[in-house]
């Protein structure tokens, strides 16, 4: 229990011995000790099924539920007409009804819902609801969506446009003229799904006092609370949203979904609690996965490695609804300007609607796709000018405490150290370009936000808050609005508060994700948890700590500044034998100040570029990442085996190193899976090619490469104890690092994802054929 100087805490110290073991809270999760939403069974609870449209685009002519309602065990049916108010996570683009009102826009769009005594009966009843459709023209390809505006999926019905963003910084055309080399190519990122092991689940209960309680597997209880109130026309005071532990989100549960409205409405009609659990198939229809993007990238550089300009034109396949699409479209350009970037940049991104499951935010929202294109383009330039791609990135790296060309404020920046770490660990200098044919190394880098600086709905209130209840038995309860979705945010709060107050980890509890019990936090998205919720917890803990130090100083008859906190006790900094244990200190403080408690909150500073859209991408701090991937390409089958990924990530400060490592490894493997296995594809007729975990192939444990997490700590001046995000940033470089490694291994460029064996084999054959014809020509 040594005393360490904490840079963000001028006085008081904090207990620094690790409070949590190797596995943190995760053993409870993997051991089956966590109760998820579907584990909740209420007396009299009904089960409901949503009836989904089998056509890609259709007008609902009529719905006849009489046969279903006449079935034994069936208690109620709702349709779009019962909830005719649009919702949407972005306040400017509400375009979804809980159930389609007049028009269903993709195969799988919800049209009606039926509640019955059990799931089987609900399913049978759902097939008895007769729905007459008028089939409408549809579009499933984004290029066709541009060419056929008459389909009218856009807001005014005269186009299929969802969002268009065009921004330019510097003088791009001149910079290209001054470039010695230009890499120009088309890149394609096929969409991917989150594939959480827990599918969406919600229970609605409208009780006899008129209070609505919704249990939901959501990442955003606060937004769900707001939208339930608006759509169902209920006072927010009458709604309570409880978020039980969530079995993975990855962004797929970060907005309201049809089932949340349906269970509440059905409960209001039947007077009984109602549960809906998505089938795996429905999970793929609800989707909000990574957008397919067609990207045309042009990157120019000087022969000495100075990057000159980037010109990016991107077509984004949005699927049927807006979701976060407005933000996605901005992110596809705005988040690219770190960590190594030229000073001239133009991007033009267009998101179109298509009659397919709606795309949304998946881990690394909007920026994983362009990052792939850009980092591969850099690799091509490095080859062209015969420069080590690591050096090319070093040479163009954005400095700490600087501003990017699009107006993003950079504070701490451990990018150079990230490159150092992966270069050393992978023995890059000795092995890159020198491995036998078929083996290769590739590098890529990225940067990501630690939360968005501006909330989704404009307001001046804090983005995150906690309340502490300090008990005279030496226990502290943290009430937090953050959503524990397996990422470990509860554990983070416990460690921060335990360390500040000198408590054992087990003496600190967290109550989170309940709109009745906890203050508002905006939710588990955009990698905001550690930074914002952590700062809120630190503020609350320090207020209590100040009181404890004051009473201990009185007790020991010394100045407050002489009192420091160690694990278990507050003691005199010059004579640790003079101390008061934490529980006694709490009791002294309670005697002096009355019942102990505190609040802490986090408000973002004013940031962002001074132009329309300049606030999107603004964040109080940015993380930095570099990966080196090693691959083994089977030139006979085209199979790419990812041997290892070295992941260096600047998370500012690793408050819970085990969790940071877990996030780094989890991100890298998820990216690797998108590189070689996962693709979310719909057929031209709008049918999903296979909405199951047999057809949508997520990696098994045998398919996961060796992963080595290298934590870099740059101590961010505004992060809690110096911390920044670690949940999404480390995904980005995986995919381009693997693409670049394939090039190092076998000399083919894979510009279209995923790198399936068939595609790699085709590329190898095309290369051999080209070499053959060159030989013939010579």
């Amino acid at each position, binding site marked *: 229990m040594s005393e360490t100087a904490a840079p963000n805490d001028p006085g008081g110290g904090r207990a620094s011995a690790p409070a949590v073991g190797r596995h943190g809270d995760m053993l409870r999760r993997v051991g089956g000790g966590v109760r998820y939403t*579907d584990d909740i069974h209420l007396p009299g609870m009904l089960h409901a099924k949503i009836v*989904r449209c*089998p*056509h890609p685009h259709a007008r609902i002519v009529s719905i006849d539920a009489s046969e279903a309602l006449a079935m034994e065990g069936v208690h109620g049916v709702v349709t779009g007409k019962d909830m005719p108010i649009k919702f949407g996570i972005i306040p400017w683009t509400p375009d979804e009804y809980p159930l389609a009102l007049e028009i269903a826009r993709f*195969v799988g769009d919800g049209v009606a819902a039926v509640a019955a005594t*059990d*799931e*089987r009966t609900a*399913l049978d009843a759902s097939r008895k609801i007769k729905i007459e459709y008028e089939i409408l023209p549809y579009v499933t390809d984004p290029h066709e969506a541009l060419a056929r505006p008459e389909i009218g999926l856009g807001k005014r019905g005269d186009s299929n446009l969802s969002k268009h963003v065009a921004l330019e910084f510097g003088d791009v055309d001149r910079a290209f003229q001054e470039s010695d080399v230009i890499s120009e190519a088309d890149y394609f990122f096929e969409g991917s799904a989150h594939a959480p092991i827990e*599918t969406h689940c919600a229970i609605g209960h409208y009780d006899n006092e008129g209070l609505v309680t919704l249990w939901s597997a959501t990442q955003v209880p606060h937004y769900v609370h707001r939208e339930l109130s608006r759509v169902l026309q209920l006072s927010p005071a009458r709604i309570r949203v409880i978020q039980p532990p969530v079995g993975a989100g990855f962004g797929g549960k970060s907005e309201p979904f049809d089932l949340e409205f349906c269970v509440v409405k059905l409960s209001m009609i039947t007077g009984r609690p109602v549960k809906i*659990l998505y*089938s*795996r*198939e429905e999970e793929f229809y609800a989707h909000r996965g990574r957008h397919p993007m067609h990207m045309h990238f042009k990157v120019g550089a000087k022969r000495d490695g100075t990057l000159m300009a980037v010109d990016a034109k991107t077509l984004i396949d949005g699927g049927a609804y807006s979701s976060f699409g407005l933000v996605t479209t901005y992110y596809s350009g705005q988040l690219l300007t770190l960590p190594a970037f030229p000073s001239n940049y133009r991007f033009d991104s267009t998101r179109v609607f298509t009659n397919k499951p709606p795309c949304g935010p998946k881990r690394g929202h909007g920026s994983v796709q362009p990052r792939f294109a850009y980092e591969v383009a850099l690799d091509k330039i490095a080859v062209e000018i015969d420069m080590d791609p690591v050096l090319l990135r070093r040479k163009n790296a954005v400095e700490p405490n600087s501003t990017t060309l699009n107006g993003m404020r950079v504070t701490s920046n451990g990018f150079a150290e990230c490159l150092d770490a992966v270069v050393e660990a992978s023995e890059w200098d000795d092995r890159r370009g020198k491995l036998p044919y078929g083996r290769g190394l590739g590098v890529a880098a990225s940067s990501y936000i630690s939360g968005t600086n501006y909330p989704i709905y404009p307001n001046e209130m804090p983005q995150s808050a906690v309340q502490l209840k300090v008990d005279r038995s030496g226990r502290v309860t943290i009430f937090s609005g953050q959503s524990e979705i397996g990422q470990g945010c509860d554990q983070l709060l416990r460690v921060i508060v335990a360390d500040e107050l000198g408590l054992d980890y087990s003496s600190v509890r967290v109550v989170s994700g309940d709109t009745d019990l906890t203050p508002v936090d905006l939710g588990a998205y955009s990698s905001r948890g550690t930074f914002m919720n952590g700062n809120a917890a630190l503020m609350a803990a320090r207020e209590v700590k100040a009181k404890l130090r004051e009473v201990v100083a009185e007790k020991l008859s010394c100045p407050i500044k002489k009192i420091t906190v160690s694990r278990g006790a507050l003691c005199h900094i010059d004579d640790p034998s003079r101390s008061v244990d934490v529980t006694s200190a709490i009791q002294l403080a309670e005697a002096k100040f009355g019942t102990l408690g505190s609040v802490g909150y986090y408000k973002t500073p004013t940031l962002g570029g001074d132009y329309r859209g300049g606030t999107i991408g603004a964040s109080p701090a940015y993380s930095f990442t570099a990966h080196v991937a090693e691959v083994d390409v089977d030139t*006979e*089958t*085209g199979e790419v085996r990812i041997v290892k990924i070295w992941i260096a990530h600047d998370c500012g400060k690793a408050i819970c190193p085990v969790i940071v490592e877990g996030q780094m490894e989890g991100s890298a493997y998820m990216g690797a899976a998108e590189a070689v*296995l996962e693709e979310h594809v719909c057929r031209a007729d709008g*049918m*999903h*090619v*296979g*909405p*199951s975990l*047999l*057809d949508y*192939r997520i*990696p*098994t*444990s*045998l*398919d996961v490469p060796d992963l080595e997490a290298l934590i870099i700590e740059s101590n961010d001046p505004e992060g809690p104890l110096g911390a920044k995000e670690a949940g999404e940033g480390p995904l980005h470089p995986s995919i381009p690092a693997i693409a670049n490694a394939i090039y190092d291994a076998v000399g083919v460029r894979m510009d279209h994802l995923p790198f*399936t*064996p*068939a595609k790699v*084999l085709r590329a190898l054959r095309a290369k051999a054929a080209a070499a053959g014809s060159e030989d013939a020509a010579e």
Partner: protein
Amino acid sequence: MLPLPVFQHHSPSSLAEAVSLMAELGDRARLIAGGTDLLPNMKHGIVEPEHLVSLRAVTELNGVQHDDAHIVIGAMTRLVDIAKHPAVLEHAPALAEATGQVGGPHHRRMGTLGGNLCLDTRCVYINQTYFWREALGFCLKKDGTVCHVVKSGKKCVAAASNDSAPALMVLGAEIDLLSPRGKRTLSANDFYTTDGIYNQSRKLDEIVTHIRIPILADRVSAFEKLRRRGAIDYPLLNCAIRIDYKGPQIDEFDMVVSALAARPKRVKAAARLAIGKKPSDALTKQLAEVAFKNCKPLTNLDNDADWRRDMIRVLVRKALERARPPVASQAT
């Protein structure tokens, strides 16, 4: 969640009881021997039995016996137990390898050899939910009149997807069946038909009781499977090879490639080419080429049919490389 349909479950404790139940229930019943294939298919409405007759408690169907001439495997023996059985590993390695690569560890602990033999054919257009199949317009195999693999096709081309089938075929296995009409034996080769809707010669009320595999000295065999992941996946292609050596020379040869269409494909031309020759790289190449010429994957399991076809050569080569003469033969 996708609920199972309502059905009645029977759990006879003897073979005789199971046979009489099947006689009584007729085609309203299906046998369940592990359920890793049947239960998902029931959830998807691909089969709709009113009764399931479980063979779990029929202990006489459990276990592996062997003497000098045969290995006899009870139909309810778990795949995991076959994959690591010393006699199977020694005398029928193709079967050990095949059963060891079915699904994932959980499937191999639930799944049985009898169940895998009787696995239903698979296709991307059939192994989907009822909603999906209805939205597509159904297909020949169930509820529909069209084939989505072979447009205007009148014959279902759903693919045999059992890994054990090609192994048992090349090993010359015999399959004992018991029904109310008595006992009969089918060779593994005759067990499968070319009809994707139902690709077995077995009548629905016939119970697979035992699988008998001959033991021959100087016999080697190998199995190869193509899949995108290290586990879980059904085969995108599989291949079994068996060689009986006479000294260093190939005396008998058999090759079966499956996960193509309803019936696992025996590549007869390969045998004609191989018999009487010594293994060599040139022969391997010729055999791979013959297999490539004779086997044409469809888009029934995956869109990359061309890649799957390319991989036939690779699978055959890999299997042949592991089917070199036994050390004893090489010495003579």
